[in-house]
């Protein structure tokens, strides 16, 4: 669901850019969407910056229960970083 917002935010940002670049908005409206645009971009960037990579693996216990466990990337994977 957060991804939908993110996408919407990005497209909103794009339409803000288009509208501001047309330049035919009243000052107040421009200011508002400017503010909105800046906020959106901050929010988006923050989302991207704040996200932490987690690689997990679903494992099955002996009792048959399943749970997620951190998946340690194998040595060959290290090379990828």
């Amino acid at each position, binding site marked *: 669901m957060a991804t939908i917002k993110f996408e919407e935010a990005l497209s909103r*940002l794009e339409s803000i850019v288009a509208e501001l670049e047309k*330049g035919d908005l009243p000052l107040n409206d421009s200011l508002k969407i400017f503010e909105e645009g*800046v906020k959106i*971009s901050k929010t988006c960037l923050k989302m*991207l910056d704040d996200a932490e*990579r987690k690689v997990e693996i679903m494992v099955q216990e002996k009792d048959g229960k399943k749970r997620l466990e951190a998946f340690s990337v194998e040595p060959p994977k290290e090379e990828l970083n």
Partner: protein
Amino acid sequence: MANSTNPVLTVTQLTSLVRTSLESEFLDFWLEGEVSNVRMPASGHMYFTLKDANSQIRAVAFRSIVRQIRFSLEDGLQIVVRGRMTVYEPRGDFQVVVESIEPKGVGALQIAFEQLKTRLAQEGLFDQTRKRGLPFLPQKIGIVTSLSGAAIRDILTVLHRRCPIMSVVIYPVPVQGEGAAVRIAQGIRQCNQMGEVEVLIVSRGGGSWEDLWCFNEEVVVRAIADSDIPVVSAVGHEIDVTLADFVADYRAATPSSAAEAVTPVLRDIKESIAMNVGRVIQGMEHQLQIFRHRFQTAQSACPHPAHIIQHHAQCIDDLDHRLTQAISRVYSVWRPRIDSLRVSLNAHSPRRSIRQGSLVIHQLLVRLQNVLPSLVTLKRRELQRVITLLQDLSPLATLARGYSMVELVASGDIVRSIGDVEVGTRIRARLFDGHLSCKVEKVQKDASHLDL
């Protein structure tokens, strides 16, 4: 068909009739033969000839089909194609339009594949309308694959490269052999139950047709079809096509391209955001500049009312000056007029007539004073003359010659005769210069008197 009544056809008409007839007659058939004359021009379509001991027929595989062929077509290869007939009208050639190509000898597996595919297709599982879009930037991705294969490595590598923040949940499953299909389907369902991921990659690396077979099994296909989470399939190499590929929302040719399909490049997103926010700022600043410029233009063009006021003040000073001039001109007109009237008035004062009147009166007065004395003198002269006459005639002159006149004192009667008196009578004798009072002493008659 009566020959006599048949109209003469044009080549085109005949060709078209033949095509229609062929196409309706040979709609779907399997054909077996040896490949020769394989030709693949730039269009991406593939042309070849199928032959056997006695005959040969032209065949065409259009680009969309060519892409699905999981083996390379070489001259001499025995193949089974599924296709339909058509006529290439410009040349009048009839040819097989190939729908799928399989190497000859796949046998029952291939038939089963085709049968399941047809059934599921009829159910609508492969409809394009069922396909869902992939999320733009999923927070978490599920991967259903084997831990041992190259696929997981490739996927993780690509994911990390493109989007280092991407989280992953791996559902390890066997991807070949007995029971693999069920485990794969379980993995898919499990993933849906956990509900943590936004997109799911179902994958395995390359292998033989038989190795990949579990991805053609119905349980897997249905698990994919039932998934609430969009599914990307990446099974084998590019040429390998499984039913999982048909039912997936997106078919990736390889595990790497599956990873690419589910993640954008993070750096690109950030750059795009940064660029957009830059344009937002620039747009805003530009607009502010335009407004400020317009405002400053208006403000600096605004005329100061001081000019107007000064102009008016000058007007009033001028009018004021004219006002004072005009009023003093009024006086300069009136005053001389009054002065000249005053001079005229003085010049014609009654003094002159007074003086003249007084002169006339004095003249009259002189005449008056002169006239009366001369009148009196005249009268006096007249009187004097009469008085002189009177004096000349005075009876007293007689008396002066010695006569006197006697009169009775008592009566005043003249005494004319001695008989008028007696002794003792008082008489008065008048002389020329007076009178004498006397008393008769004696009466004596005079002799000389003659009595007549």
